[in-house]
């Protein structure tokens, strides 16, 4: 029987995080904390800096400011090995010749040396992860035969196999039909209850209002932090989708 292992989780502290590309500020001076078990929506229009924020947290792009896990500064990528980033479909080649099982098994790589194949114990973790996301029957399928929602679940299974404590989803709900979106958000809730933290970048306001308890509206800078129905008022939405906010100078 597949199950989500309860975990202690990890607190994520983001302090004065800023990302610049040349002389252009993508994210400026963002500070927030995510406690273990929280499921948080990062919301904003295209180009608002959501992907840059998640990439900076996961250490894939250089940034100013600090990212801390349980109070420890993450100076190197290896300090963030229990952070999993789940890409949007357009970031990968959906026709790549890889099966669902191989994709999920790649999450075990952090526990293996170069050239080593997963052991029996690793395969058991992979099978459990596939079961949790409901893809056990499709494990031998090439990923190109999966629907958008199934592919996202496969990536979630990979993050589970990675034994990640923090899941970063970069527009992972884009291009997925509504029933599947609801299923995936339900899965995020289960992850949260198991102790994992989940950050979901999205621009779907209605979904955030209905299904999330906390959201971080971002338009280059963090505009607010709290329950969506309490903070997403007309004034904040004007600022969130304002073109003027999209072109701040580097401070």
């Amino acid at each position, binding site marked *: 029987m597949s199950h989500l292992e309860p975990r202690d989780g990890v607190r994520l502290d983001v302090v004065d995080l800023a990302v610049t590309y040349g002389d252009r500020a993508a994210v400026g001076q963002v500070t927030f904390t995510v406690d273990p078990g929280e499921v948080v929506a990062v919301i904003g229009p295209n180009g608002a800096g959501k992907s840059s924020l998640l990439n900076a947290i996961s250490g*894939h792009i250089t940034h100013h400011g600090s990212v801390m896990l349980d109070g420890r500064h993450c100076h190197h990528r290896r300090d963030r090995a229990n952070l*999993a980033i789940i890409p949007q479909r357009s970031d*990968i080649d959906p026709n790549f010749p890889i099966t669902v099982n*191989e994709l999920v098994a790649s999450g075990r*790589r952090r526990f293996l040396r170069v*050239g080593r194949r997963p052991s029996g114990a690793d395969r058991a973790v992979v099978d459990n992860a596939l079961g949790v996301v409901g893809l056990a029957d499709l494990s031998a399928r090439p990923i190109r035969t999966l*629907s958008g929602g199934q592919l996202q679940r496969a990536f979630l299974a990979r993050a589970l196999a990675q034994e990640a404590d923090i899941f970063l989803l970069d527009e992972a709900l884009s291009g997925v039909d509504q029933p599947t979106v609801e299923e995936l958000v339900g899965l995020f809730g289960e992850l949260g209850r198991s102790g994992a933290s989940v950050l979901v970048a999205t621009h779907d306001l209605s979904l955030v209002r209905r299904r999330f308890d906390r959201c971080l509206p971002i338009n280059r800078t963090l505009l607010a932090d709290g329950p969506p129905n309490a903070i997403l008022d007309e004034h904040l939405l004007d600022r969130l989708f304002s073109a003027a906010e999209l072109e701040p100078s580097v401070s």
Partner: protein
Amino acid sequence: MNWLIDPFRSEFMQFALATALIVGVTAPAVGVWLVLRRLAYLGDALSHATIGGVGVAYLVGIPLLVGGLIAGTVMGLLMAVLERHERLGGDAIVGTVETGLFAIGLIILSRNGTGVELSHFLFGQITTVTGTELVVNMALGATVLAALWVTRLDLKMATFDHRHATSVGINVGGLRLLLMVTLTAAVVVSLSTVGVLMSIALLVIPPATARLVTERVATMTTVAIADGIAVSVIGLIVSYHLGTPPGATIALVACAAFTVAFTATVPRRINCETKPPAALRTIHP
């Protein structure tokens, strides 16, 4: 049967066959990763750049293979430094560096007194391969295959999703460098066989053919290598009997195999495009 055996009765044709087999295995093994990363043009560019190294090697009196390897490494380093340029894409950088190194090689090798036949490197001269060259090619090929075998799982992850690969501790930059070095070695091995202009034939066409008919990287690699060996040997035999240039003949045979695979898989591709994937049909009938 004699038609198959006759070409290989002489020693120089036996050397040619051995060289064709080495290239037929090595080039597709590297080329699989070029095709999967959609970097086929990089193989073409690197093969041209290698001529620059060969030319400089003649000038300073070092082995040509070493010159070729140095040129490939220089190109890889220049690309790594220049590709972060804000206004230019990587393809523009590759085009510029490739042309520059190729031009240097052409100018040096076309000067009187070098004693070098330029066409030897441009079009290959598989029937003049010496025993020493064969041994060096074999060592280079074995090294390339060993490096690719050890890193195959990491290469697959880094090719598919480099951000995930990085987060699980894979040295994505190191793998990219490894790919450049193995690509350079494969091009150098190809120099004497099919030549610079045709080296792309064995680097890209067998893996592309294999990609049409397979769904897994391991199978794709096996099929690409089998195809590489087959087209090299068949090309060599055909060129012997028809008196055509071996490099060009091997390239044409590779193209023919690709055309057959492409045509044979047309119905399957049309089927995939008109029907939703099986998984979708099951869940959303």
